[in-house]
C-alpha cells in the first residue's frame, strides 16, 4: 500500500514539475516579441520532503538565459537607437517549441506511470477478492 501511494505522489510531483515547465515555456513564447525580454530557463532537481523517503522532483530556481538578445532594425520603433536598431528578445521559437514538445512527452510518461500504479494496485485487490 505504502509503495503504491509513494509511487503515486512521486508521479504527481513529476506531473506538476512538467506543467510548471510548460508554464515558463509559454511565458517565453508569449514574450518572444517583447523588447529586452530574456528567456527563462528552469532546471529539475530531486526533492526530499520532510519524511525524507521518496525522491520527488521539483523545479529549481528560474534563471535568465544570458545569450545576447537580437538587434532588430526598425527605425520607426520608439525604442530604436540612432542607428535604427532596438534590442529584441533572445527567444528562439524553434527551441521553445521543441522544449514544449519534450515537456508534453514527459508529462505523458508520468501519466502512464500513474495509470500503471493504479492498475497494479487494482490487480492486487482483485487477487484478494477471488
Amino acid at each position, binding site marked *: 500500500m505504502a509503495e503504491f*501511494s509513494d509511487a503515486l*505522489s512521486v508521479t504527481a510531483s513529476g506531473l*506538476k514539475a512538467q506543467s510548471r515547465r510548460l508554464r515558463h515555456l509559454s511565458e517565453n513564447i508569449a514574450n518572444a516579441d517583447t523588447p529586452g525580454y530574456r528567456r527563462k530557463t528552469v532546471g529539475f532537481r530531486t526533492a526530499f520532503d520532510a519524511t525524507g523517503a521518496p525522491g520527488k522532483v521539483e523545479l529549481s530556481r528560474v534563471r535568465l538565459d544570458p545569450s545576447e538578445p537580437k538587434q532588430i532594425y526598425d527605425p520607426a520603433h520608439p525604442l530604436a537607437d540612432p542607428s535604427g536598431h532596438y534590442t529584441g528578445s533572445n527567444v528562439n521559437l524553434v527551441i521553445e517549441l521543441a522544449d514544449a514538445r519534450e515537456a508534453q512527452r514527459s508529462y505523458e510518461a508520468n501519466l502512464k506511470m*500513474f495509470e500503471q500504479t*493504479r492498475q497494479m494496485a487494482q490487480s492486487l*485487490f482483485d487477487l*484478494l477478492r477471488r
Partner: protein
Amino acid sequence: MDISSLGAARNYAAARPATEPNADQPGAGEAVKDLARDFAATLRESETLAKASMTGEADPHALVQALAQTELAVEAAVTVRDKVVEAYQEILRMPV
C-alpha cells in the same frame, strides 16, 4: 458411554487455556484501530484538497493524487471487510 463423555469434558477443560486471550500480547485490535485512523486521515485529506481545488487554491495534480490514493484506500478497506464478513458467515454456516 458415561466414561467417554467424562473424557470429552476433561479434554475440553485441558484445551481451554490454549484459547484464552494472552494479556501481554497486543491484539489485532490496536492494529485495526491504527489502520482505521490512517484510512480516515486519507479520506479527510482528500476532502480538504477537493474543497481547496474547488475554490482554486489547490493544485489539480495534488487533487488527482489524493483522490487516487483515497480510491486505493477505500478499495482496500472494502476488500478486507468483504473478506471478514465472508469468513464470519462461513463460521455461522458451520454445522454445530
